[in-house]
């Protein structure tokens, strides 16, 4: 066997190895992208569920709270806004509308404290459990989504996988941050 032949085999071997390595990275990227997609679908499912629960809640609460019309109308309004934002599919808008809805619901549940009969209503209690849990699920789905997005983005930006990502046009995904001013603000402490 001539030197040239050995050399040729070596070159072919190296090329095959590089190809295999690229395929591995490519598949890893596709897998992560699917995780991100699936994670977003999870958030969407829970957002929809939250929007579906709210009319029931308002219906149940109405009979008890004649004097709090403004509070639950605000909830209905915020719910409709959030529902529209969800259907438009805009991540940023959805986040803002959801934050507003959370605040409106918070006000409603704060008022409920003044209505002991309502707090004893089985139907209301079940709805409250569902809503609380749905809110938790949204935040856990968001947490998982953001973690996945971070991993995916790291892979698309870090060397050497960024070469493969660039070649096959893997674009960085957007994080889902709830723009809730109350949550973000640092607590104000005054010394006076």
């Amino acid at each position: 066997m001539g030197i040239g032949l050995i050399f040729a085999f070596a070159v072919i071997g190296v090329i095959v190895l590089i190809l295999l390595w690229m395929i591995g990275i490519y598949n890893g990227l596709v897998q992560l992208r699917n995780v991100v997609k699936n994670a977003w679908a999870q958030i969407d499912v829970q957002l929809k569920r939250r929007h579906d629960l709210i009319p029931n809640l308002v219906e149940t609460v109405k009979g008890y709270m004649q004097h709090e019309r403004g509070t639950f109308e605000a909830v209905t309004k915020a719910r409709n806004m959030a529902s529209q934002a969800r259907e438009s599919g805009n991540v940023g808008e959805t986040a803002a509308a959801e934050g507003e809805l959370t605040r409106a619901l918070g006000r409603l549940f704060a008022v409920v404290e003044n209505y002991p009969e309502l707090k004893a209503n089985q139907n209301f209690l079940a709805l409250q459990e569902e809503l609380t849990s749905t809110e938790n699920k949204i935040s856990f789905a968001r947490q998982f989504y953001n973690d996945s997005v971070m991993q995916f983005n790291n892979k698309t930006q870090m060397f050497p996988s960024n070469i493969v990502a660039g070649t096959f046009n893997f674009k960085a995904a957007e994080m889902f941050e709830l723009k809730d001013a109350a949550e973000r603000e640092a607590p104000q402490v005054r010394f006076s």
Partner: protein
Amino acid sequence: MWEQIRANQRKSAILVVVMALLLFAVGYAVGEAAAPGVGLFGLLIAFAVWILLSLISYYAGGSIMLAVSGARKIEKADLPRLYNVVEEMKIASGLPKMPDIYIIDDPAPNAFATGRDPYHAAVAVTSGLLNICSRDELQGVIAHEMSHVRNRDVLFMIMVGVMMGTIVLIADVFRRVLLYGGLGRQTRRSSRDSGQIQMVLILVAIVLGILAPIIAQLIYFAVSRRREYLADACGAQFTRYPEGLASALEKIAASTATLQHANRATAPMYIINPLKQEGMAASDLTSTHPPVKQRIKILRSMAGGASYLDYEKAFRQVTGKRSVIPASAANETQPVPARQASKAQEDHTQRVRETTDALWKLGNYGFIACPCGVKLKIPPAFKLPVIQCPRCQRMHAVKE
């Protein structure tokens, strides 16, 4: 997150190979000691026993475990709170399928997860746990169990457990054979040369027969403890609230009730070893679970963080040991802050009522809510068409 599963799988593979070699060595030595040239046969028998036990536990391990512990399956309508918490943690851990949920009617608080992979998973909790745990605490416990499922701990522990069991079994059989003198006759018949070789082999077999089960068990325990720490770390990361799991562990450990259906085979599966009394442990080495006090201390030393990195830091600080989280997994996570305790107000009485009602329902009891506030429970064998409320004497029709 995925990196951690991968790192786990690599380590597990190495461990399984080591255990397998140990198993084959025992099989071979025992066979060779029984009669010259039978070593390979002994090896084959060891292999066959192992395969058989593995297959059984792979396909039926989960259901056997659930049946032995007296667990009963529930649906969402039975206990919405528990179902919701499990679903929340399923989402947080990114599991592809909702696990089945079981409850065990036992006042001792405890929980376990089973299932060979995330598609065949189940979590079981005792009614005692449901009664004493707040939502945050329950979340912590379920997150711990979910991470056992996600990290494939259940499958791995079953497989290593089976291997350990096989080694112990073969060593046990060997010791019995030795006791009844079956080997003595064999050696007398063989020639002097091979007799000497065989004497050495018998010695090796005896040493292996004594040491192998001990080594196997020590490996098993070490891995089990490590996986418990890992599951705690995941529990904190999933819930973003280490204090929930910490205070749940504290409550479980403080409970004086003992779990009725736990035995030595099922004990390693629970979140806290239901058999061993804390502080009475002979040694750290022979325990499937790390000391609860230490687990709680680590979780409480996470200093406002909730990620693997924070757990890792706290672990080093508390135990002085190297690390629990595979470096490749720790590198790909970023520090995340812990969240606040959930604001939901909880009523202990309400919680106990929920749990007991669910148990009544599982026992096919009917319910009639009387307007005076009493909830009548109708036993399944109740034959009369009407029943009287014991408080307000109202009559209620019993529906079929």
